């Protein structure tokens, strides 16, 4: 099943934005990253930075560490994998959500 989130136009290329979604009956802030030159193109992680303790993950810089696609938290710069949500420096992780592009829309896949 898919739920529409926003249009592709609302995304920022090679960067992140944030959406407010209801997932399993719970409100969730979801960081959405748009990397148009990758196969998967869109990635989604929880917006809550468990180390910095604030909703800021969508505002980090994207890049890679070795083979891992990552986002760096804007607060204290730890790296989180876009694929697994795992933090590379500390033993914490953020939730990963499955999203995709359907036509002109970004959708949540559940």
């Amino acid at each position, binding site marked *: 099943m898919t739920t529409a*989130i*926003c249009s592709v136009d*609302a*995304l*920022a*290329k*090679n*960067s992140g*934005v*944030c*959406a*407010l*979604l209801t997932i399993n009956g719970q*409100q969730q*802030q979801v960081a*959405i990253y748009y990397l148009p030159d990758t196969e998967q193109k869109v990635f989604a992680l929880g917006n*809550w930075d468990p180390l*910095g*303790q*604030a*909703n*800021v993950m969508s*505002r*980090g*810089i*994207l*890049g*890679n*560490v*070795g083979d891992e*696609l*990552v986002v*760096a938290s*804007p*607060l204290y*710069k730890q*790296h989180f994998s876009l694929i697994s949500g795992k933090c590379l420096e500390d033993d914490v992780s953020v939730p990963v959500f499955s999203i995709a592009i359907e036509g002109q829309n970004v959708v949540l896949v559940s």
Partner: protein
Amino acid sequence: MNKLNVVVVGNGMVGHHYVETLANSNVDAKITVIGGETRPAYDRVHLSEVFDGKEPSDLAMTSREHYIELGVDAHFGDFVETIDRVAKKVITQGGQEFSYDKLVLATGSYPFIPPVAGHDQAHCLAYRTIDDLAEIKASAKGKKIGVVVGGGLLGLECANAVKNLGLEAHVVEFAPGLMGVQLDDGGSAMLRRKIEALGVKVHTSKATQLISKGSGHRLKMEFADDTELETDMIVFSAGIRPYDQLARDADLKVGERGGIEIDYQCKTSDENIFAIGECAVLGKFIYGLVAPGYRMAEAAVSQLTEEKKSFTGADMSTKLKLLGVDVGSIGDSKGIAENSRAFVFSDERDDVYKRLNVSADGKKVLGATLVGDCDDYDTILQYYLNDIDLPDNPENLILPAVEGGLPSLGVDALPMTASICSCHNVSKGDIVEAIEGGCKTVADVKGCTSAATGCGGCAALLKNVVDFELSARGIEVNTDLCEHFKHTRKELFTIVQSTQIKTFGELIDKHGDGRGCDICKPTVASIMASLWNEHVLEADLLPLQDTNDTFMANMQKDGTYSVVPRVPAGEILPNQLIALGEVANQYGLYSKITGGQRVDLFGAKMSDLPAIWSTLIDAGFETGHAYAKSLRTVKSCVGSTWCRYGVQDSVGQAIDIENRYKGLRSPHKFKMGVSGCTRECAEAQSKDVGIIATENGWNLYVCGNGGMKPRHADLFATDLDTATLIKYIDRFLMFYVRTADRLQRTSTWFESLEGGLPYLQDVIISDSLGIAAELEAQMTHVVETYQCEWKTAINDQEKLKRFKQFVNSEEQDSNVVFVEERGQVRPANQVEKKRLALKAVS
């Protein structure tokens, strides 16, 4: 057992070193020190820096408190007058008596004043102590001409000081050439040319016969050749004489030409009395440098311990900068030895003179003279000190570098005993030991061995040794920016500049690997901003920016932002203050006056930022770049407009300067200050660029810092007019922007610049790299393409896209919760948040 009673006479550099060494040794001694000067030991070697803006207190090597901590009984401002060798006690002029078991004479020397008639009138001065400096300054005040008698090393240093005091400086020398002790005729002549080109008048072969009253100036010097010279002040620097009267009176053996005779253990003819430093003579030789004095102090202390060291002499090679001219002399610099064969290189276009003296078989260095270029000094000195065999064509050591040439001596060729730092007696072996003990950087090694913390002359060599030893141990001195670029920031800057690449994608494709990261992306964004100065939120640039640049505001711990409008120089209209208050009220912002003379509004929601800035821009504000690595503030004092002491309009100058550099992105943030007079109310000397008004213009200071590691700025140039001031700042800032590492403030950048202040002055003032015009043009480009980033952004919907809290909702972040404190908001802590959440439910 009773403590050993040790009395030290003289608290100069060497006497102090003795006291410290003894106090830190395992000898159970009661130490008493009697210093003739009113202040505890200070760094005489750097005396002239007091004329460049240092305070006498900056030269202090110790303090009364420190001596108390060491348990040393110290007396200052009293001279020992008599030594009673039978009763084993000394008596001072002030009538104090001190008994000793061991007596140490460290009385140093005094300036020799030639017995010319009239030498004892007012404004005939000497140059040796801090008190002398004060007299020289007072005498020079408001006057035109100053003469230094003596064209040796100290005389020329003194001439520089006289020149810096704003006087026309003359050097009068008895001999036919300058620095006759160290330089051969060719070197001496070259030095003279260079010094005269700097405006110092040199008179050689002049014997002063009489100093009388002048007509146009205070004094008149009459010379043996019937010529005359009028002057307002005379400073004698015609050599030094050991302070040995005390020893003579006590019937200790003294040298033929003065000096207290000592043996290899630094003992005088009385076995309970030692002499060390400049008052001592060992085999007819007086060692007038600090390093040998320190070795004597250590040898003398060791006689009281199990381990007995000897002092058998020391190398007297020197490298220094006199009036900005590099001069070096090594060993037998003039080639006096019979078997000496010389290579001489002289370049009268660039005013460089070098002479290398080698043994007849061409195998060993005997000595060298260098004037105008000391780059080869370290290498030649190491060949000399370590008796290393020369390569086949030794002349290459002094010839200008040609491609593929220059047989530079690898530091690996140095034996472990090679002395790297003579001030602190640190050998290559000591450095290797420090590295094996865990030191990983030059700074670690400095901290661990004290190398390069004395005169600083060995800094470049130390770095070479450390770098070599580290890489030999596989400890890569990795200077790559990050895993994506195998370049330093400086190299990347050159690449971007020369290829004119405008996007990160193209740069990483051609010169890097992978997708980039939070280190290289902001660095490249900053480089491109310094060079091309496009808006930070252009589609290609936006993904590169740190969150602060992306939202043109500083992120706070709860994800909200702060807002800091620019208030150039702290001057603000009452209506603007009102507007700030209104904005803060309307958006519920915490307001605070910052340490940078402006106002910070905290707690702004991301989605409110555009509206807040629209209102502020309407009230006449611009962005303050508090979020960017760029110019923060130019702090100013009120200056001559209002202040009774001000000599220039510091506010006007600060506003102009803030407006000129406000858009410049740089490796790190930078700050400036402008004070209206020397009282320095704007604290300009703690800024990256500091400007202090003088009666004749502006003094420029650079590379100060007030943050994590405070650093006093260095005086860079004096009495500049505004146009020259701006020209130098343009060049300075752009040179920093080009060459610094990422997140390197000017202070740490400066510390890492090989060649230090003189090098920087050469580049900026004398344009030694030939890049000044380019630096200025680059700055002009940045100034001309300035835009208020916020003003552009609020008129461009595409740029505001990311300022929505949620792409699919108008709600706000529920985790941002404020409570009130002292009448304003602040972020709630976790406990408060829980409590508020419970309340909301109930």
